[in-house]
């Protein structure tokens, strides 16, 4: 489908914000020496989530009808997303603004971090479920979608926290959060590999012969019914990525989301914090690339009726004409290479 700016911003930034909240909350409870980071982290998470939330408003093409958006909480994950993200961001706002207006006790942040973490996890889960529960989107209809979307957000948010610590101390942050980040990045590589395979399988499973209900394969699309690239009115599909372009995009994603940040975080690069800031920045950019591919490379079940289906030769064909056809050719004195 067509990747749009609002969708990229809301899904990526909400995840990064959630990862940031969870990582600073973990530090608050596990590493008392790093408690100074929580107010700052909550502020960062609030700003990031707010940008994502505002961007999501631009996904509505008729905002006037937005007042009805909570009507289908019982069945619609988008209604639930509006509710959960709509609670998460204001709670963050209260947590960061109130201490500037009133004197708050230390447990304000302690309790607040737990509440914000819970709300962040719920919001991230609901957003991911929105995509994972659409059977027609063959590439997304798997629990892997939920795991991947949440994990990308958690790892990218944690990388931002680690970068902030590195900048503050001017060197290698270390500690359990650092180990968690490294482990999380390795797990992320595994998740993305599985998702790449799932996307490939979904792409292979959708072709013209599955869309007619007819037993006599093969089928070839000869007229897509007045559809035409780039399917302006049918945004659930998008022109298929060319294999070469797809390979490059996945490679760039792997480098920016996983490999380069991992190397920067592992290698002893000296006391400078610039590597950590770079690692976090590159990882967030990688998250955007990952999400762009997530939307652009998805296979919708209706793809079978669109004109740009990839031509795939049979994997079992011996490239020989049928005996019957060969006999007929022989009867008319022709060979199969005579230009037929």
């Amino acid at each position, binding site marked *: 489908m067509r990747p749009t700016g609002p969708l990229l911003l809301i899904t990526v930034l909400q995840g990064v914000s959630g990862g940031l909240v969870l990582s600073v909350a973990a530090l608050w409870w596990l590493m008392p020496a790093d408690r100074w980071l929580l107010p700052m982290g909550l502020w960062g998470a609030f700003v990031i989530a707010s940008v994502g939330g505002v961007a999501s408003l631009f996904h509505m093409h008729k905002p006037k009808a937005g007042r009805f958006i909570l009507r289908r909480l019982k069945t619609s994950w988008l209604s639930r997303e509006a509710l959960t993200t709509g609670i998460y961001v204001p709670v963050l706002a209260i947590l960061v603004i109130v201490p500037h207006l009133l004197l708050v006790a230390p447990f304000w942040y302690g309790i607040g971090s737990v509440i914000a973490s819970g709300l962040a996890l719920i919001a991230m889960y609901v957003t991911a479920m929105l995509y994972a529960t659409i059977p027609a989107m063959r590439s997304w209809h798997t629990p892997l979608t939920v795991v991947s979307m949440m994990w990308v957000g958690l790892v990218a948010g944690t990388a931002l926290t680690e970068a902030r610590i590195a900048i503050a101390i001017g060197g290698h942050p270390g500690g359990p959060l650092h180990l968690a980040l490294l482990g999380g990045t390795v797990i992320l590589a595994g998740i993305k590999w599985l998702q790449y395979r799932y996307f490939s399988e979904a792409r292979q499973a959708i072709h013209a012969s599955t869309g007619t*209900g007819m037993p006599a394969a093969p089928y070839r699309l000869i007229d897509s019914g007045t559809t035409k690239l780039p399917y302006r009115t049918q945004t659930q599909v998008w022109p298929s990525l060319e294999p070469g372009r797809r390979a490059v995009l996945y490679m760039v994603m792997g480098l920016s989301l996983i490999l380069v940040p991992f190397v920067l975080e592992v290698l002893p690069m000296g006391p400078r914090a610039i590597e950590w800031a770079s690692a976090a920045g590159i990882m967030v950019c990688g998250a955007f690339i990952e999400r762009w591919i997530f939307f652009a490379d998805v296979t919708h079940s209706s793809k079978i009726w669109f004109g740009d289906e990839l031509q795939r030769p049979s994997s079992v064909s011996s490239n020989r004409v049928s005996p019957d056809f060969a006999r007929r050719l022989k009867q008319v004195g022709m060979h199969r290479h005579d230009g037929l």
Partner: protein
Amino acid sequence: MQLTIITDLNKCVGCKSCQVSCKEHNTSGAFGTVPDHDPYTDPDGMWWNRIVGMESGEYPNTNVLYLPKACMHCYDAPCVPVCPTGASYKREDNGVVLVDYDSCIGCQLCMWACPYGVREFDEQQGVVKKCTMCIDRIEDESLPEIERQPACVQSCPTHARTFGDLEDPDSEVAKLVAQRQGFTLLPELGARPAVHYLPRRQVPVILDESEVLRIMEERY
């Protein structure tokens, strides 16, 4: 009651008269909901009914199949529960799936959820639109009985399309589906479409004179 359209794939010749009549009816009159802003330079705009052409078999044993594809008005329409505002809904009295343009926010989630890709996005109005089964015609009591059917059904020159109530065992559509093993598209996705297709047969349909006269009398 579940209104539906049955298409006999033996009779469909791919003339696209249903596609054109759908657009003609729905861009004109009191409703005019299909956008047709620049029909001469952008003829590939919105169509609620598209005829897909498929070639089957391998040379020399090839065949051509035409598949009219519009909203399937599914029993378990996946586009309905995903809609956050309730703009997409399925009518209880006749099973037709419709969109309330006033409460549609244009998020296009229903387009992603529809397995058949028959919902289309109107960029000008910012809402999603689709086949209404010509609800304005079939409920218009000022029209003669024979006219109260979808434009695509009425315009089909080969009578490939039949309109009726799928849940009425005495209706023509129910009988056709039962007797001719009517099938639906992508049943594995669980939407339970109401729109059925009658499979192609190797033997051509043979009409006798009385049948031709009956059809001519009925129509003209």
